[in-house]
């Protein structure tokens, strides 16, 4: 459900800067279902990749062979991402907080971490420069925390006005998709609130999996269940070996 819900958020013809893992699976599903003209951009320098199976890494050969263009890493960040040419940044997270800030660096103190994570990669500038950001992450109290241990990529900082103050050009995380539902920032306070619950999920369940007092948006809705076509496309995609 999470992957299907994420795929639906991508619109045909958009350009999407894709992170590896769940974002890549969802973006590839979107290209097979509702958004055949989605332009997939990976930080390895492949623009317009059309893989026929989900890549294991952002630099698999299939991405380069099927891309409209293959360019260097400095170019992808300087010429394409930094000027704001890319519509959607699609990211995962180890931790995310109530203001959509993302941590992929460390759990615990930086100098003596409980868990050392991979780090920033392309995410800080994707989060800063894409016109909008979609985050896909499983919902639990470990991942959905009141304040992230380390701000790797900025969402809304500590609240309204922070992005503008920092000179970040994109509009920030517009959608957070989880295995329980969909969260969006409150238009006034920027705090993430739940707007959709997936079929069979209750608000109490979502609250129990969130490390802050999760509010429900007015008109909280149920996510449309996956269609047979979406399920078939997803099974075909994930059934293949990377």
């Amino acid at each position, binding site marked *: 459900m999470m992957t299907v819900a994420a795929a639906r958020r991508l619109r045909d013809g958009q350009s999407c800067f894709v992170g590896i893992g769940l974002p890549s699976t969802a973006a590839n599903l979107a290209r097979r279902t509702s958004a055949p003209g989605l332009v997939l951009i990976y930080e*390895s*320098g492949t623009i317009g990749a059309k893989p026929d199976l989900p890549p294991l890494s952002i630099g698999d050969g299939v991405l380069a062979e099927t891309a409209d263009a293959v360019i*260097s890493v400095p170019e992808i960040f300087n010429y394409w991402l930094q000027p704001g040419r890319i519509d959607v940044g699609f990211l995962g997270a180890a931790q995310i907080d109530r203001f959509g800030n993302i941590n992929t660096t460390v759990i615990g103190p930086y100098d003596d971490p409980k868990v050392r994570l991979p780090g920033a990669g392309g995410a800080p*500038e994707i989060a800063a*420069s894409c016109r909008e950001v979609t985050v896909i992450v499983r919902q639990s109290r470990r991942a959905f925390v009141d304040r992230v241990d380390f701000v790797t990529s*900025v969402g809304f900082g500590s609240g309204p006005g922070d992005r503008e103050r*920092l000179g970040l050009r994109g509009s920030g995380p517009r959608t957070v998709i989880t295995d329980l539902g969909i969260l969006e920032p409150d238009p006034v306070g920027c705090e993430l609130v739940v707007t959709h619950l997936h079929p069979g999920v209750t608000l109490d369940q979502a609250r129990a999996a969130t490390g802050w007092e999760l509010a429900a948006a007015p008109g909280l809705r149920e996510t449309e269940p996956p269609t047979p076509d979406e399920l078939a496309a997803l099974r075909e995609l994930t059934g293949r070996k990377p």
Partner: protein
Amino acid sequence: MATVVPLAEAVAELVHDGDSVAMEGFTHLIPYAAGHEIIRQGRRDLTLIRMTPDLLYDQMIGMGCARRMIFSWGGNPGVGSLHRFRDAVQNRWPAPLEIEEHSHAGLANAYVAGASGLPFAVLRGYRGTDLPAHTANIKPITCPFTGEELTAVPAINPDVAVVHAQRADRRGNVQLWGITGVQKEAVLAARRSLVTVEEVVEELEPRPGAIVLPGWAITHVSEAPGGSHPSYSAGYSTRDNDFYLAWDEISRDRETFVAWMKEHVL
């Protein structure tokens, strides 16, 4: 002018204890054969520089080659953690590892500055993140024209750059294509360079989109067929995704890791 020499000889001459070494290749064309030779020659106290320290640096860290690492994303792509890297940071095994941590955009630009002969690079990045608080080499800078606050990172000029490519000719001109990462920038930023290649040919046949690094910009070229495995060399091999998945198990435990290295690398 690059000279074509055997890999062991090139590593012995170019890589010394205490050097800063950049081994680049963005998923594609990662110089594994050269890294394994550095491990075999027992180099110590290296500052390892690499945007995506994947399995290669996990192996070099686990074998005790590194004192410091400069990087922007340290994981096993699509699989999970680098266990040897984590063990070094969290438990100081086999030795403490100092880290200097960036984002991809920051490190890519540091190489560009190094290759350009500039002292620093400027980018619109890092603002609002916790990275500048922990990495001394990330500083705010004000645009002298607009007053906008941007970020500066100092140039990277490694003692040695090591990259892998598809081909070279006998005069040491190197041709590489496909996902080209920051290999060109790393070689041009470095004081000395080693390019391992799939094959040495008489004449380089033109390839669309290929980069050619002229022999006079490189120190040594060494033939290392299959030298990018388990990554790949477009036109010669495909990525061994099964090995990346298997590495998670091999590297998780110290003893299993050392046994694997003894059997396959040493």
